[in-house]
């Protein structure tokens, strides 16, 4: 005998073998169906959810970053655009002012020129009138002179003779 006393735990009892097998198999089936199966699924699902949530957060952050850089780009663009617009506006203003100046100058010149012409014309007209007046006055004076000088018949005879002489010459 290997042992002094009855070391019964070392002797696998037939009944205990059978009962342990039955109990373990039933335990396994029940636990798998009602406990470990659902727990395993729940854990897997929760981990999947967490993984998904993390992925989503990462994606959202990336998107945000993308949006931020987009915003910055837009801002920069807007800034340059504004600068360009300002510059353009200034140019336009300058151009307009210059143009206006030029136009004004031209107009002034034109007005001056017209005025000069007018003045010339007026002068001419005045001259003509003056001449006319002077002519009339000269005629008047000549008439008066003639009347004075042709008051005697002898003088008239003499003129007529003189005129007749002139005609004869023709």
């Amino acid at each position: 005998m290997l042992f002094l006393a009855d070391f019964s735990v070392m002797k696998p009892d037939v009944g205990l073998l059978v009962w342990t097998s039955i109990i373990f198999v039933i335990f396994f089936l029940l636990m798998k169906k009602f406990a470990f199966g659902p727990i395993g699924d729940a854990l897997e699902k929760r981990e999947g959810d967490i993984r998904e949530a993390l992925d989503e957060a990462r994606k959202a952050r990336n998107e945000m970053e993308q949006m931020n850089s987009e915003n910055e780009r837009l801002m920069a663009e807007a800034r340059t655009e504004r600068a360009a617009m300002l510059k353009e506006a200034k140019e336009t203003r300058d151009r307009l002012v210059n143009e206006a100046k030029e136009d004004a100058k031209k107009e002034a010149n034109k007005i001056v020129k017209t005025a000069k012409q007018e003045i010339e014309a007026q002068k001419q007209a005045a001259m003509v009138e003056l001449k006319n007046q002077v002519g009339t006055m000269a005629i008047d004076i000549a008439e008066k002179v003639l009347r004075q000088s042709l008051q005697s018949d002898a003088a008239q005879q003499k003129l007529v003779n003189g005129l007749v002489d002139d005609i004869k010459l023709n």
Partner: protein
Amino acid sequence: MRHLLLSLIFSCFALVAFAQNDHDYGNHDGHNHAGHDYGDHVRDDGHVHHATICGESTDHAFNAGDNAIHHIADANVYSIGPYSIPLPVILYVPDEGGLKMFMSSVFDHGFAHHGTGHKAHERFVIDGGQIKHITDPSFPDGTVEISGMIHRGDDVFVCYNDKLYPTESKSTADGGVFGGGLTGYYDFSLTKNVVSMILVCLLLFFLFRSAAKAYQNREGRAPKGLQNLLEVMVTFIRDEVAVPFLGHNATRFLPFLLCIFFFILGLNLWGQIPFLGGSNVTGNLAVTAVLAIIAFLVTNFSGNKHYWSHLFLAPGTPWFVKIILIPVEIMGLFIKPLTLMLRLFANITAGHIVILIFVSFIFILGNNPDGSVNLPGYAGGAVGATLLTLFMMTIELIVAFVQAFVFTILTASYLGAATEEAHH
């Protein structure tokens, strides 16, 4: 402060453990209800008692080894403190008309008798929780009062009407290797171990069922309480045991591995709870054998082509290596579950025995060789046993987890080897 509290709790365990043990060994070497010996009562202090039945003295000095072996054995009664709860007995006796079913209370194992009955029932007696069969057919059938039992080495004799009748033990499946073998009857009783297993399985089932429900009821929220506690262990087995060894097969085998782990852990811890009879389920070879056989069957039924070809063909090795390698591989196939079985059995049984021996110090030191009581010895033994038992129970607590984990991780590694895909 916390450490102090913990050590106090553990010393309570130790005290409880020997309080539980001290009442019962004085009696399991032949009880004393025998006719003319009624006056000489068994003393519960382990003190040597005087009795004579069938002309033989039942005086035996206290034997720590016998005491320990008695306490780790399976029994047909469930002893909690001095109370012996009767359990259903189911015996299969091929020569005597098959099945016999009765409660173990028919043996009249009363208060503080620790599973030793005063009566024989249909030529069966109960001795220290173990049912024995009286082989002599001349012994009366039915329920009769017996004078007592005599132990000669491993053999138990029943004294009835001043005549000794030899007995036989139940059939065991060790083929005589450990002194057992097939006898005239088989014991399919709901023994202490079977009842412990059923209770632990029910407890585990309700614990995990409530956790599983919590996952449904509290979906999308953080785990809490019991659910959280169990989840830690479940995810530990999954992430540290199942996934590293089984890879994409982990989900398939996870419930099996969890069952193995929690079955062993639950029973290891159950056997350590003081006042609950200290059942030694995972320290019983029959239980570990079943677990090892199940692990073996699951492994080999899951084995793929790659596994079997490695086992029987050992590809890529020269023929002279194959001659050695293939027998070794085939031997390994059976040695693996064998080591699983023995490792768990030996660890748990050894732990229980050591604790029981430590507790026995009280009685070894407390009893003088002439049978008188040695009070200083008792006191010294009590203090020493408390400290040593405290130490041992702490280690046993670790062993309970470690052995459950080791059994599970080795099963997972065998499963992993069997289901691994070819990679060369």
